């Protein structure tokens, strides 16, 4: 990868727009492929980004995904407007989900999203305010 170059990406995420859900993560993956990041690292970034992107589309009123690619790491931040998460510890438990049935029918809402992100990322942070929104930050080393 080119030395010292930093790439900034930003995507608007629309609530409940399942037709394009995953497009932002897909574009991010393509950029990482173009600059030659290792494939297992890209896979990790793509999976955690996609889980987070789906969460914003499923649970929030919309939000922003920001990606900053450094030579040695990728940082991804998701910031949404929406109901927020009342109990983050509960939300982090595998199997806990508040997703409606139509989301489960798409193969999501099994309560694995947040634990998956935390497992993939080298650093993971989540902050939420009920009635305002949620911010998720992930850092993955290359």
């Amino acid at each position, binding site marked *: 990868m080119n030395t010292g170059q930093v790439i900034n990406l930003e995507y608007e995420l629309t609530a409940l727009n*399942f*037709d394009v*859900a*995953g497009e932002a*993560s*897909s574009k991010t*993956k393509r950029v990482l492929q173009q600059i030659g990041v290792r*494939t*297992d690292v890209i*896979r990790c970034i*793509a*999976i955690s*980004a*996609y*889980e987070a992107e*789906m969460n914003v589309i499923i649970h929030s009123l919309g939000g922003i995904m920001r990606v900053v690619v450094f030579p040695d790491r990728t940082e991804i931040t998701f910031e949404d407007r929406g109901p927020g998460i009342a109990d983050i510890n509960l939300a982090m438990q595998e199997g806990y989900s508040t997703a409606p049935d139509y989301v489960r029918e*798409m*193969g*999501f*809402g*099994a*309560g*694995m*999203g947040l*634990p*998956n992100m935390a*497992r993939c990322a080298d650093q993971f942070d989540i902050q939420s305010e009920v009635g305002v929104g949620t911010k998720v930050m992930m850092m993955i080393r290359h």
Partner: protein
Amino acid sequence: MKFIEVQQVLDAEVVSGIECIDREVFAVCGSDLMSDVLAFTKESTLLLTGLTNIQVIRTAEMSDLVGIVFVRGKRPGPELIKLADIKSIPLLVTKHSLYESCGRLYQKGMKSCLKMGDEP
């Protein structure tokens, strides 16, 4: 096992990605839970599923899956096939159930995606 052998074992029809038929399949996962697929599969895993929505292709793309088999004769719609073409993800449709399909591949020596790597 190559993708073309999977097609034969499952009496499956190639719906998309005939050019990818020589790809090597290293492990198999049978699931309708995309979050489980994202969490537990390794790259070059073949996914067997009964789901035919567009998120199946997205999941395959993010997880670097080698291809998808739709079981019980479920046919994906044109939108899904179009996206699979763009992402070069081959698609098969088999009339067999998920259980039967997994059993046939297991009998031929295909292993679970969970046993491949370090940890689930």
